[in-house]
């Protein structure tokens, strides 16, 4: 009886291990493929071989004529950085107002903010194109930062409002009675307590603008082209340059890995904050 049970358990453990391995492979396989391919010489690209002589040739090529990845990388960094730098404080201000101040039609307004999130990008990208053409914002950093903000702000506002709602109002009232102005209350009390929420909002803003393909594809041409759009350039006359795409892909992926590592460290600390009343 006992013996039977043990074998059963062992068989189950084995099956479970296989299942987990398969799931991991499905999720991580493509990423592994990109990293490997990025370092493969042209001759090895179409083999699934794990043994090849790694080369940095692909990286040299993408930074050179005609791809000039350096410029695109810089575009992506600038656009994403400004989206975060403008988006997070703006979202905090809006979220705080929605959370704390009485206003007319607050529910409808807040729903309106959120509803913009439900519009399919494909539907609005053409009006945006026309508008940007009129305003001379096509293919500019300003235009790209603007469009990214219009996408990330609603979600960031909604998320931060939820966060601020959980901060006991007594903390702010105590600070006001202690002599702080409203602005000072936000700076001294709300902001520090919101840090975990601000990080999540910031990371969300960054990931969206960093990964955005559709808007950048249609609203940029040459000067403000971002990394994901660059991938398009590798469908060349000599065929699809998988190894160059993979090399570019690693650049797109790297910040994501950095971020997930960072999130892990930060959120262990963040989870316990604000829990004390």
């Amino acid at each position, binding site marked *: 009886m006992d013996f039977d049970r043990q074998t059963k358990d062992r068989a189950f453990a084995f099956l479970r291990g296989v299942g987990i391995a398969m799931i991991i492979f499905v999720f991580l396989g493509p990423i592994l493929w990109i990293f490997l391919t990025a370092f493969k010489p042209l001759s090895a690209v179409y083999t699934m071989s794990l043994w090849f002589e790694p080369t940095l040739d692909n990286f040299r090529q993408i930074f050179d004529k005609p791809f000039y990845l350096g410029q695109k990388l810089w575009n992506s960094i600038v656009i994403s950085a400004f989206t975060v730098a403008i988006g997070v404080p703006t979202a905090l201000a809006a979220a705080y107002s929605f959370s704390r101040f009485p206003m007319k039609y607050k529910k409808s307004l807040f729903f309106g903010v959120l509803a913009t999130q439900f519009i399919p990008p494909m539907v609005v990208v053409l009006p945006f194109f026309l508008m940007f053409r009129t305003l001379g914002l096509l293919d500019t950093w300003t235009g790209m930062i603007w469009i990214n903000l219009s996408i990330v702000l609603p979600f960031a506002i909604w998320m931060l409002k939820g966060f601020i709602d959980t901060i006991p109002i*007594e903390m702010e009232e105590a600070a006001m009675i*202690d002599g702080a*102005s409203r602005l000072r209350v936000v700076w001294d009390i709300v902001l520090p307590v919101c840090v975990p929420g601000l990080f999540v909002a910031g990371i969300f803003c960054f990931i969206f603008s960093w990964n955005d393909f559709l808007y950048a594809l249609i609203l940029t041409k040459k000067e403000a082209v971002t990394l994901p759009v660059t991938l398009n350039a590798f469908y060349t006359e000599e065929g699809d340059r998988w190894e160059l795409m993979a090399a570019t892909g690693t650049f797109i992926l790297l910040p994501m890995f950095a971020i997930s590592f960072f999130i892990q460290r930060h959120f262990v600390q963040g989870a*316990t904050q604000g829990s004390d009343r």
Partner: protein
Amino acid sequence: MAKVTLRNVSKRWGAFIGVDNQSLVVEDKEFFVLLGPSGCGKTTLMRMISGLEMPTDGDIEFDGQRVNDELAKDRDVAMVFQNYGLYPHMTVHGNIAYPLKVRGTPKGEIESRVQEAARQVEMLDFLDRKPRALSGGQRQRVALARAIVRKPRVFLMDEPLSNLDAKLRVSMRAELKHLSNALKITTIYVTHDQVEAMTLADRVAVMKKGVIQQLGPPTEIFDDPANLFVAGFIGSPAMNLINGSVRNGRFITMGGTSTVAVNTPDRERVVLGVRAEDILVHEEGGGDLNVSVYAYENTGENVMLTLQFGQQRVTARTDRGLRKKQDEKVGLSFNPDRLYLFDADTEERIRT
């Protein structure tokens, strides 16, 4: 230090009335308690004094100066909240120092005053801790220290002890009393706990539905309640209230039992109030009434007897040495000097 005056103050939210046209003077250095059940408007009244809430009507004055239009930060009041309202990201030191820091107090002075405030609440050893590493009682001390670190004109305390466990509440109450005697700052204290009101207050205002029912020293509120609500709210156990009428100078219960002589002209629909400690229990045959023991409860310091006569039950507080059995017959009499009659319809006290 300030005298706080409220003139015809009201607070309404739409049709809901929080505080209804109340006037009140809190004297300088007085410990003033607002007492009432939840939703009676006591906290709203205090929040209007703090500046966190604006009155719909009426004036609030500190030392004769109207402060209605001053923001909370400019009124120079200090407040202790029920759930402490500590700043979780600051240390105890940071929390206590914050009101001084905001006001631009010089560093050296901040240091000495934080030390002094922390010493007064016995938290000197915890200055480097964050609030989350403190117990409930310690957090409340920090909140207190933050309030006393500057000398505010008025102290406001919103149920400061009600989040503490029963034992701690009693010891903190004594500390509060000691502290307030030492500081001599006008204090307005909101509570629903009548024991806190009795023990701490110089004067108490008992509130119900936005209206002050009675205002006076605790003993006066206890010994001379103005109406049924105050009589029932103050005292533990609650005052015994017996419905009946007065005929030929005696109080007759609804069940028709003639109980005790009262010095009042005949009238119907009367409530007789008598506190548990003013009911005297005798051996069978003694006293004015023959009753039976419905329940015997020994609390250790007292014996509480619930006695039944007719449909009526009353609770008596008796000597802890008393031993009675359920259904045992005993005699009962009321202390004639401590009887209260109320009109059952208006709920007002009937005075003779």
